């Protein structure tokens, strides 16, 4: 996976951060002034992301069971599309393991919807 400084080079990225599956913010970078994204906002974004990762896992497991289609699991990325901003979350391969060898670190980037290149962002965050 790319590091946060590399992710910040992508077009339209406002911020990039790393967090645990429990939502604890580990590291972050931001390209915009703090009156747009205050550092404490990143703390809440990390929890938003963690919650949505598990919602997505629930959906993926349920949808797999209902359709017998095997392309949803494991969930690799989740995106929450807000009104002006989106946050794209990437799960490392070890995320969701019942007994992880190391603490999985999830990455996320915040994009401005107006200028976002979602395809490039998903490619950059692909493991």
């Amino acid at each position, binding site marked *: 996976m790319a590091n946060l400084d590399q992710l910040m080079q992508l077009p339209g990225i406002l911020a990039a951060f790393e967090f645990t599956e429990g939502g604890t913010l580990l590291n972050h970078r931001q390209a915009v002034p703090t009156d747009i994204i205050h550092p404490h906002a990143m703390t809440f974004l990390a929890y938003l992301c963690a919650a949505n990762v598990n*919602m997505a896992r629930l959906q993926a497991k349920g949808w797999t069971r*209902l359709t017998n289609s095997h392309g949803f699991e494991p969930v690799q990325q989740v995106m929450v599309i807000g009104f002006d901003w989106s946050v*794209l979350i990437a799960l490392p391969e070890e995320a969701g393991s019942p007994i992880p060898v190391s603490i999985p670190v999830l990455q996320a980037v915040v994009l401005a919807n107006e200028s976002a290149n979602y395809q490039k962002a998903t490619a950059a965050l692909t493991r």
Partner: protein
Amino acid sequence: MAVCRFSDDGTLVEGYGLLTPQQIALLSHISHRYRRALQGHADQTALFSGMRGWTPPRGFVLRGSRQSLCAIANVVCWIDNADASLNEVLTELQDIARW
């Protein structure tokens, strides 16, 4: 692979694709409930962080190893990752959602 539009209570309005009618109806209900949960998360995040621009949320993307669900407003589609461009899909969903 499939696309459907649902009403504000999750009832299927119209759907097309490789799913059975029952599965399409389920897709609309599941997406509706996911969207409602997302609305709550976005509202709380905006309230607690003071950061504008998250709410009301427009939609979500759930990306698996080979397939994804993409939803904007009351329209959701199931796509094959190898065949679909996320930019194009989300742009089309935005347009369709305005109809």
